[in-house]
């Protein structure tokens, strides 16, 4: 059944998800939401990889997805750690209020 869905649909979905994620990073002000948007971009890429992997009948794309998933987990952990650290100095997760560096 899955064969009836053309690969271009998956690619389009991937592109839309990636754009929503990228737009979210640029316009949202909450650091945690920004983190979620970055994750969304990564997973949009994963979808693209999987779609191409099936279309090309090659395993490389799937291996790449494994790496991306591991890296995405690492980035979430780092992001949360940095946020907790920053929260000790300033009681906020709003990136507009994190502005001590200027010049």
């Amino acid at each position: 059944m899955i064969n009836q869905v053309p690969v271009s649909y998956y690619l389009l979905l991937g592109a839309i998800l990636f754009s929503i994620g990228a737009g979210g990073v640029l316009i949202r002000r909450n650091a945690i939401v920004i983190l979620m948007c970055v994750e969304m971009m990564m997973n949009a890429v994963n979808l693209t990889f999987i779609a191409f992997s099936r279309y090309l009948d090659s395993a490389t794309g799937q291996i790449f997805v494994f790496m991306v998933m591991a890296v995405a987990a690492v980035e979430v952990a780092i992001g949360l750690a940095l946020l907790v650290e920053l929260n000790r100095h300033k009681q906020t997760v709003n990136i507009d209020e994190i502005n001590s560096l200027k010049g």
Partner: protein
Amino acid sequence: MPIEIPTLNVIALAPQIVVVVTALVVMALDISLTDKRVVGYVSLLGLAAAAVVTFALLGGPAQAIQQMAVSDGYALVLNLVFIVTAALAILVALGYLDERELQHGEYYALLLFSTAGMMLMAAATDLIVVFMGLEIMSVALYILAAFNHRQVGSGEAGMKYFILGAFASAFFLYGVALLYGATGSTNLHAIGEWFSPDRGNLGDPLALVGLGLLLIGFAFKVAAVPFQWWTPDVYHGAPTSVTAFMSVGAKAAGFAALVRILMVSFDQAFTLDWQLVLAVLAVLTMTVGNIAALAQKDVKRMLAYSSVAHAGYILVGVVPATMTGVKGVLFYLMAYAFMNIGAFAVIAVLEHRDAIGTALSDYAGLSTRKPFLALAMAVFMFSLTGIPPFVGFWGKLYVFRAAVEANMSWLAVVGVINSAISAFYYLSVVVQMYMRTPTDETAAAPALRLSGPVVVTLALALVATVVLGLWPTPLVNLTALGIFG
């Protein structure tokens, strides 16, 4: 379906393995020792071992591991750049962290992992490995930038670097995904094969959009316009010893992977469609970096913008996509490692608690307070400007010559004009040090202490900047080995 068990040519990644094993030993020592400086010295020993291994492989046949990574001359010469960068940065950190009571073992482990990531990027011949190297390097740098947990600026620098770095990684990944879809492979040689003229795939839109997204990812990492705006904040907020490391290391690693990808995979496709774009980016990067640096009153921020400008000069060597350009880039990166880390080492000495002491006025009359420090800073500033007989001059000469040879003289002319602009702000530091008397505030500041490791760093950087400036032949011969295998 039977599975073919691959043979692993571990020698190809021997320098990287030495660095990673050192990092693991450093972690083990960190939980068993109380004096963390020992951990720093062990890291230096590990880097020395990696340098020995690199020299042993240099000049021999290129060793490849499963078409994933290769230790050819290009990767090995860059390994030396990363080892020099990491070693100098560790020496700066040994003194800097002590004074701020931040001497923790994690610092050295993270720095070594980051170095291993950079070395992996230089050796990678598959986009999977490029991505892994990029992430190993970046993730360690995010934490290092936020290392000074007593200062809000450091945490902020880490957060900004992390958000923008992860954002850039996502663009890089999407580029890889599109390239994979278009060419059916993530291997650099296979992609290059797919683009060969007789296959008729030149100008394929999907692959070109993929390359464009890759360029965005790399522009972030090397701090090129229009993705340079994170640089001043991150370089300013991060501990100075970390700024020294990442201003050189991350830039060198970004260029390392970018140049290999352009030369191996996009030889033809790049010159047809993207060369002009990258040339314009080089011009903008130089100009924006230099003009923004002119307005700075803080030396650390000024050097951050100047590092944007230097990314532009290096791009001038990348744009022609010729071997002359590659050698120029390698020379420039090595020269930049010595002079830039030297300059940041001076900043690290002058900066006392809580990021005070980095303003331009704090350098007033330094020549009477600490003559050696002032002399060293003056030499680094002259070298960064590109004034002979210092090593920075030869670096600029080689990258600009590559542009002229490729019939892009206008690019070299813009580069020279920009060097002239940069003289204003570099020399203003020298003017402050030698021709101004110390202000009351500066005179009241605590006495400057030069710790042993910092003196060693300054001496090494100074000697390299001057000697390689007067006699660049050894470095020219070294970069001549930097060929693709």
